[in-house]
């Protein structure tokens, strides 16, 4: 068995038993990455750091010391600030930016002993659902349709993270989720992705997109690895005022717990007209699996579901237009000369932002502009209260909610060109961000064309444990899925 095929939990056992060394494991990943350039998952390689970190891990492991992720090689989404290393949110406007500081999440991972392999591709500023908006080009999904050589997208915005995990180019990856950017790519690549409760993971040092929605989490090969990663990433952080002061539990303990007595809600509004037969079938099968393991299935109603996506496309661009105001060519990144100061700002931002980012900044600026603020932004925030209230009422009837993760399997690059059509990819995931809840995507099977399909579980605030417990039950029934290697 190849070393890169090991999950975190399997590698951890072998590292602690000194059956393998962190240096060997890291070298295996570095060579896998070199052989997978065609997937375009990484935008920066850091082999020197990786080797140095692995060496330190081996010294610790030899002494029987080391953290929860000692010697585990990880990929880091380009949105996380890493000191002295390429951090550009895959945007042209951050050309050459090397932060002088480390994000809290990555610092937590290094403190736990993890090894950094490099920075991962993503949609520019995390705005996209296919990784096609990256300044560094698209990412290719390791999965292809049966008997087809046609490339597919890995989803987005964490497309590099999902591809790298799925293709065994890292043991696990960091990712971020504003409207579905962890869960949708996880579903497209047969991997597990969890967006924790808003406030569980520090946003400090993570390039901001929409501050009231952004939350970091891991993409991993299985549910146990997601539990290990989230525990290491999460912390209470005084540098992030929205970081919530609650202890981080040992999520692994939730795995394998009986589902007896667990009430699983099925929201009837998610049975949207036109939902693909295959998606419906995988959803029903998921409910059946949980029932067979002792859970009770209950129908629930989330009546404002259909308004989540339109409200999101006011709130997210509005917050983005404010957050992205900082990119002006003065303090960091790209500068394009102009006749005067404003001309320089305008030239820099026209050249530095790609079309999707410009579109969202313009929409955001418009909905926040004089005379429209109440009609758009305030209205959307009121709708958000109603979405949250739907869930508050649902928790009286159920402990966890089961839905499809995406309305379809992975699609081809260029297949979706209409922005609103692209936004619809997040139809099942976006409500979770709007209500600040935790959500996990877990693989549930393959489509008739041989592509991964995922289910989503939504939990109560700070009840990630129930998500891990229930996702592990789905995984036990569905199994795990690995793409056939055609790229190296």
């Amino acid at each position: 068995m190849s070393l890169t095929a090991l999950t975190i939990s399997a590698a951890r056992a072998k590292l602690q038993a000194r059956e393998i060394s962190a240096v060997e494991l890291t070298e295996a990943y570095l060579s896998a990455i070199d052989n997978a350039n065609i997937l375009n998952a990484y935008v920066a390689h850091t082999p020197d750091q990786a080797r140095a970190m692995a060496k330190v891990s081996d010294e610790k492991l030899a002494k029987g010391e080391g953290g929860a992720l000692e010697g585990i090689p990880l990929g880091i989404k380009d949105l996380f600030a890493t000191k002295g290393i390429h951090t550009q949110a895959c945007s042209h406007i951050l050309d050459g930016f090397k932060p002088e500081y480390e994000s809290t999440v990555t610092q937590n991972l290094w403190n736990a002993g993890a090894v950094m392999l490099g920075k991962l591709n993503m949609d520019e500023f995390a705005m996209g659902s296919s990784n096609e908006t990256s300044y560094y080009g698209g990412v290719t999904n390791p999965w292809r349709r049966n008997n087809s050589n046609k490339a597919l997208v890995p989803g987005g915005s964490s497309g590099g993270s999902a591809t790298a995990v799925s293709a065994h180019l890292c043991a696990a990856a960091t990712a971020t989720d504003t409207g579905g950017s962890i869960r949708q790519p996880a579903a497209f690549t047969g991997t597990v992705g969890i967006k924790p409760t808003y406030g569980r993971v520090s946003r400090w040092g993570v390039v901001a997109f929409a501050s009231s929605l952004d939350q970091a989490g891991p993409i991993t090969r299985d549910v146990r690895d997601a539990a290990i990663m989230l525990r290491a990433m999460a912390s209470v952080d005084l540098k992030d005022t929205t970081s919530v002061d609650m202890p981080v539990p040992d999520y692994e303990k939730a795995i394998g717990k009986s589902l007896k007595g667990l009430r699983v809600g099925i929201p009837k509004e998610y049975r949207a007209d036109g939902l693909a037969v295959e998606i419906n079938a995988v959803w029903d099968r998921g409910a059946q699996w949980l029932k067979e393991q002792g859970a009770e299935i209950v129908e629930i109603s989330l009546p404002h579901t259909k308004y989540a996506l339109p409200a999101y496309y006011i709130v997210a661009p509005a917050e983005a237009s404010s957050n992205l105001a900082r990119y002006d060519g003065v303090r960091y990144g790209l500068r394009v000369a102009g006749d005067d100061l404003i001309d320089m700002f305008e030239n820099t931002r026209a050249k530095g932002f790609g079309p999707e980012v410009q579109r969202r900044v313009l929409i955001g600026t418009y909905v926040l502009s004089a005379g429209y603020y109440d009609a758009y932004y305030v209205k959307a925030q009121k709708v958000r209260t109603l979405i949250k209230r739907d869930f508050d009422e649902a928790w009286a009837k159920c402990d966890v909610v089961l839905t499809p993760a995406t309305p379809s399997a992975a699609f081809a690059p260029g297949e979706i060109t209409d922005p609103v059509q692209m936004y619809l990819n997040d139809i099942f995931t976006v409500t979770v961000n709007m209500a600040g809840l935790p959500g996990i995507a877990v693989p549930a099977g393959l489509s008739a064309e041989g592509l991964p399909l995922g289910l989503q579980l939504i939990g109560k605030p700070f009840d990630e444990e129930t998500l891990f417990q229930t996702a592990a039950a789905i995984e036990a029934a569905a199994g795990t899925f690995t793409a056939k290697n055609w790229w190296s």
Partner: protein
Amino acid sequence: MSVDEKTVRRVARLARIKVANADLPRLADELNVILDFVEQLNEVNVENVEPLTSVVAVNMRLRADVVTDGHFPKAIMQNAAASEDDFFMVPKVVE
């Protein structure tokens, strides 16, 4: 509500993004598609509903009003496009 080319030009100016005149019709169309999509919210009755300000009910933390970080001008200037003596350089703004 829908936007015309004049509005797009005004919004682009507010957002400090230079837009060529030739691109205005296309951008107006794209923005209108998105604005049409969000129009659905008009169906929702939000009377007596408070806007969401926080997704989890928490009290904002307080801390002593003291300097906790700073004093590293070199690090702050490190990524500047142009600087001199720890100042950011920009095109002349005062004649």
